[in-house]
């Protein structure tokens, strides 16, 4: 046969087979070995015994929780070999120990735990050298510790020959497992080192024998995991978490990858579900002496109380990131888990792989769910949407992942993509009314995709009874879409048609939700609805605002003022945040109106009243101004860069308006100038400049400003109206008429434009038409609020 190998080469070969678990090769090697030296017989017996025992275990793996097996014919043979090896006492000390460990293991397999413990106590496991030990021996020692732990657990404490009882005994068991786990990690690291260097030597382009992934086997798996299982069972969360961290900090090997993935996920779960910032301690810190996390009745030691001559390598180096907070740690662990779960994503769609796909999907979706919980808690939706995007390789026909992805996009403000993903969600789950509603919300929001919004809203309405409570919301949605389209529509007929549609939808919805948007409803009816809404939900700012507008439309200025006051007290920062400044303007305008109609009992003298009201308004504006300015300094980075500046400009303009009404052109100019510094090209600024010019009496200048404003925004009704009036003053009637007619085209409900138009027509001598215009103006005026209703946001 083959040439006999020299002694040392033979030994190396045996060692390799033992560490690689190639037990079928052992008998042949033993034959060669015993042919060399008589004294090797005992070693041969040992090797044969080992090979047969492990071969047996490979073929009949032990299942957790299985009952002892008793003697088996194959095992009898093993016992014979081992007894033979031990009997003569010729073995080298190392081999003697190995034989005893194998014997103990055999006892365990046969169910004789007492005997196994006896064997272990002879060996004194702790004295076995870890430094410089061959790889297979590390595994042996690790298994021995685990087996010892198993035996101790199986034995009722009373019948045990070991003196310790109760908590000490628990501690002994745990120590066995922890040692086993540590040595097992060390063993796996060493294994990988050997395999790697072998791979380097081979220099083969093929992956080589390394591809054969190693399986841990029952004993090592138990050793690695049983310790933390017991910790958690005993309610000692501190130790359990500590153990998890020890395993995770050990440098990864290929065999531990799955274990790491599982443990990382479990630790993340514990961090997210069972801990809080105050009970957290960082992985590099000692755990707190007292922790609410631990079961107070069964207080065990907080840290491990043993040492090993060699420990598994841990991740080290400079600038290692070490989490300082539970969410941080959970996130790190989840990202690691995610990367692993992602690697295992089963991509094939063939039926044979259905089960695999399910497994990979499940393990990934748990990770993604936990990521969502962790990132949601910290408001990191942008990052979440990126993570969930990576989950899309699992997502084929998986509603949950699609839906979560859509929601994360929505939360991250990526509206357009969100709508598209939502469409897929609707396809996967056509019965859920929430999804199309979310899509409508996006469509009528920043996207302004009204047609798509209408489609989605109809979906909800068409669901009929299935949509239950959401059906009303569907009508609201569709009403909003119509009302927005009405605003957009340029033709009056279209506008009215949409408004009619919107009204129909609103009426079907009415009575459930606040923030009423009522266009085209008669004012008293609307008042009723808003009151109803307010009763349902007291402090909704938009309802309050609407109520104020409605009241002003009915010329109940005093009531409107009160409402505005109330709204302002509830939403003091509204004019800063919302950027509309409208509440304030309402107030100012309302004040002026009160004055004009002189129905206000509070001010006995109209003269002082006038000054009082407007100056109050002015002081309000100034206050708003300074607050806006200060909020700009303090919170500028928080908001969008443009938004606060627009607000500021608007407030300046409002201030200018107030000064104009007080006939103080100098101040008004200054205010306008401030606004112009911010937005020189704004039509509002130009309009205001025109008004100031008018106040000063320089009509030509005013006309120039108005014309410039119209050049920028050709449909600005207010400018058109003023320009029309100026042209009227300049007696250029036909031009004035033209401009005012255009203005009426743009906004058919602007009563002052109708009024001006009437004046122009009258001046032209067209009395009939003028009368009609005046009548229209009168009619509209009766129902017009001080601000158009459309300033109230229409959103879901």
């Amino acid at each position, binding site marked *: 046969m083959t040439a006999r190998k020299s002694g040392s080469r033979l030994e190396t070969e045996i060692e390799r087979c033992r560490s690689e678990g190639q037990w079928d090769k052992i008998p042949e090697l033993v034959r060669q070995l015993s042919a060399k030296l008589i004294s090797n017989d005992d070693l041969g017996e040992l090797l044969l015994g080992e090979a047969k025992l492990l071969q047996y275990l490979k073929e009949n793996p032990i299942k957790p929780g299985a009952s002892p097996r008793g003697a088996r014919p194959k095992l009898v043979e093993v016992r014979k070999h081992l007894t033979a090896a031990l009997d003569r006492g010729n073995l080298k000390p190392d081999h003697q120990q190995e034989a005893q460990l194998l014997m103990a293991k055999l006892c365990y397999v046969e169910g004789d735990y007492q005997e196994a413990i006896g064997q272990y106590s002879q060996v004194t496991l702790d004295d076995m050298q870890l430094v410089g030990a061959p790889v297979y021996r590390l595994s042996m020692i690790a298994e021995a510790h685990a087996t010892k732990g198993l035996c101790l657990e199986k034995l009722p404490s009373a019948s045990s020959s070991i003196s310790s009882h109760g908590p000490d005994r628990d501690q002994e068991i745990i120590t066995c497992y922890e040692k086993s786990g540590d040595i097992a990690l060390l063993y796996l690291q060493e294994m990988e080192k050997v395999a790697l260097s072998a791979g380097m030597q081979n220099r083969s382009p093929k*992956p080589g024998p390394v*591809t054969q992934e190693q399986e841990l086997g029952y004993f090592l*798996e138990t050793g*690695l*995991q*049983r310790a933390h299982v017991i910790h958690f069972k005993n*309610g000692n969360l501190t130790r*359990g978490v500590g153990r998890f961290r020890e395993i995770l*900090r050990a440098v990864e090997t290929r065999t531990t990858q799955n274990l790491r993935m*599982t443990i990382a*996920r*479990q630790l993340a779960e*514990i961090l997210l*579900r*069972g801990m*809080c910032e*105050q009970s957290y301690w960082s*992985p*590099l810190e000692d755990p707190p002496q007292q*922790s609410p996390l631990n*079961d107070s009745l069964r207080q065990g030691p907080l840290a491990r109380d043993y040492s090993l001559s060699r420990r598994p390598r841990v*991740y080290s180096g400079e*600038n290692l*990131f070490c*989490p300082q*907070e539970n969410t*941080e740690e959970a996130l*790190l662990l989840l*990202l*690691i888990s995610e*990367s692993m779960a*992602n690697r*295992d994503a089963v991509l*094939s769609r*063939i039926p044979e792989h259905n089960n*695999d796909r399910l497994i990979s999907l499940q393990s990934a979706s*748990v990770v993604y*769910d936990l990521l*969502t919980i962790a990132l*949601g808690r910290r408001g*990191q*939706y942008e990052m979440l949407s990126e993570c969930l995007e990576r989950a899309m390789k699992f997502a084929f026909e998986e509603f*949950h992942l699609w*839906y*979560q992805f859509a929601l994360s996009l929505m939360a991250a403000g990526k509206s357009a*993509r969100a709508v*598209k993903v939502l*469409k897929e969600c609707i396809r996967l789950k056509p019965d859920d009314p929430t999804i199309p509603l*979310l899509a409508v*919300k996006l469509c009528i929001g920043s996207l302004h995709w009204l047609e798509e919004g209408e489609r989605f809203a109809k979906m909800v309405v068409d669901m009929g009874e299935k949509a239950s*409570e*959401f059906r009303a919301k569907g009508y609201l949605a569709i009403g909003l879409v119509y009302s927005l389209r009405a605003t957009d529509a340029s033709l009056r007929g279209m506008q009215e048609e949409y408004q009619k549609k919107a009204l129909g939808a609103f009426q079907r919805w009415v009575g459930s939700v606040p923030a009423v948007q009522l266009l085209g409803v008669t004012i008293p009816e609307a008042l009723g609805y808003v009151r109803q809404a307010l009763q*349902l*939900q*007291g402090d909704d*700012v938009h309802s309050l605002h609407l109520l104020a507008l409605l009241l002003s439309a009915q010329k109940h200025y005093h009531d409107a003022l009160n409402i505005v006051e109330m709204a302002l007290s*509830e939403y003091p920062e*509204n004019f800063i945040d919302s950027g509309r400044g409208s509440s304030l303007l309402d107030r100012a305008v309302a004040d002026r109106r009160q004055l004009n109609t002189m129905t206000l009992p509070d001010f006995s003298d109209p003269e002082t009243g006038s000054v009082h009201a407007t100056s109050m308004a002015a002081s309000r504006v100034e206050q708003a101004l300074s*607050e806006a300015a200060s909020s700009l300094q*303090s919170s500028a980075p928080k908001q969008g860069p443009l938004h606060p500046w627009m607000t500021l400009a608007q407030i300046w303009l409002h201030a200018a308006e107030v000064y104009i009404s007080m006939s103080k052109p100098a101040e008004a100019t200054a205010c306008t100038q401030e606004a112009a510094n911010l937005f020189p090209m704004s039509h509002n600024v130009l309009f205001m400049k025109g008004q100031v010019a008018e106040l000063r009496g320089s009509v030509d200048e005013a006309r120039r400003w108005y014309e410039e404003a119209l050049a920028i925004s050709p449909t600005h009704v207010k400018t058109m109206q003023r320009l029309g009036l100026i042209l009227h003053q300049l007696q250029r009637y036909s031009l004035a008429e033209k401009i005012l007619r255009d203005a009426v085209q743009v906004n058919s409900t602007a009563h002052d434009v109708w009024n001006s138009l009437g004046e122009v027509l009258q001046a032209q001598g067209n009395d009939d038409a003028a009368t009609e215009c005046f009548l229209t103006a009168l009619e509209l005026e009766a129902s017009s609020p001080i601000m158009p209703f459309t300033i109230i946001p229409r959103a879901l």
Partner: protein
Amino acid sequence: MLLDHCSLCSTHRYADLYFFFVKSLASFGGIAVIGDERVGVPAPACGGACLRGDPHSQRLKSADSRCGKMLAMERGVVEEWLSEFKTLPESGVSNYAVSLKVKAALIPAIYRVIRENDSDLLEPVCHQLFEFYRSGEPRLMRFTLQFLPELIWSYLSVRAGRDPHRSGCIEALLLGIYNLEIVDKDGQSKVLAFTVPSLSKPSVYHEPSTIGSLALTEGALANHGLSRVVYSGPHLQRETFTAQNRFDVLSFLLLCYNAALSHMSNSSLQTLCQLGSRVCICGYPRQQMRRYKGISTRMLVSSEFLVQLITDIHYALCNGEPELGFKALDDVMYRAQLELFPEALLVCNAIKSSQHGGALKPHKEGSRRIHVEITPTSSRISRNAVTSLSIRGHRWKRHDAVDLGSPDELMEISEVDEGFCSRSTQGGSPPAIVVSSNATPSGGRPTGKGQRRLGSCSKASRDKEGVPESCRDQLSRKQPGGRAMSETLELLSLKRLTLTSSQSMPKSGTLSLSQTASAVFSRSFEHVSNALTAGNAAHPQGCSPSAPEANRYSACSLQEERLACVVERAEPLGPSPHKQRSPSISLHFSTDL
């Protein structure tokens, strides 16, 4: 006024706060007395209301007083508690804090005072609770904090009851805690921030090189290194609740509660779940279902508040209160759906779904144990399944690549890692798959299945394959810009593939795998496109803006627009020389905006 407050010198803050608190108490005190005089007025329904009809709440009900008046004994306990702290010497505070735990009757009695909010004890109790919080002793602070859910509910329900003044001292207490918590020890505005971990940076748990290139996407590279993100603060000091700031303040208070969750007793967690349920269902049809008869006005909520609430409910759910917790979660989710809050829906869905698949199940009532089991360490996924990893390790080869000299043909097989775009084939024609993605510095060329020590090995393999020197130089020079780099790498990998294909003839094993894989892909893509085109009848070829729905739903197509560019660039290089290969479905996708 507000401005003045902000500019307050930091040292004055504490003193100022205290005066504010006392002032508010004094101003509300008078009203509290008036409230007490109206003895004939029935106790507000909200005070003692509970979710009647479900067995679980019986437990709570027993602690509730529906009759309105406290028992003399309970009164005694509270009064004793009120007096003893006042006489306590400074040094005895921490011992006293420990001793509070022993007083079993005290906590239920305080709950009753808060619920029955016209008690004359309410004001001193609130005052005392604030004193506890102000003391800075962690145990005393937590003692106050455990009543937070009940206090919030009490405040909200009284507010909704249109009698805002009645909640005066609770309001002052809540604002007091808020104003204490928004500043740090030096009186500076507190900013809560956390570090977003990144896999591209080594940590105590991992080494970037072993993670492999999959996770090192452009996004990950873009924020290479760790970024610190503020998630709360700085907050403004508040003197009064307004509709506008109400839920900002309450969200922040929940955040504080959140940070101490582990210390909270189960009774506190129960009140929290009730708070969650009630805030969300009051005034909505579900209220009838829950048979809760208290307030029937709707409460405005903010999405952020709901998310905080869910976080706390989630903890309760996993720590001994599964029944109440699930109910509360359902209610919050119901509301989130009605309000169309994506943030709250996200977290709710995640919690619900992870309860099924997670290893840690919610436990029996009262138990806070965490239960884990030994899990098998070997992969449960069978070896021959095509996974993201195996597909990376796989060398895409074409068994009909006869003319190896033609670069055009070879360009079609480009291989990089993440994401792929498939050119599906029909009728047994040869598979041609264009796999493309953003490559990473070391991971472009997979070095054998399972070989993940890319750092050490990729160089060797690169050398082995004879990548031209210039390419590598390019690679190392262009490191900084992520996009530029990935382009370079793409070139690199194209080049390499050319070499790979010419070097080695396909072996039977790999060949069959590649066939399987491509067959699998074409099948799944057909499925995708069939499913999608059935609805809108758009031909997949016409992926124009007019039919944007057509193909963009395949998982692989949901990559960044960059990928589209990659594909587009790759395509002109590879005109198809094969007649059989029609019709081909090429997948594009449009990224919006």
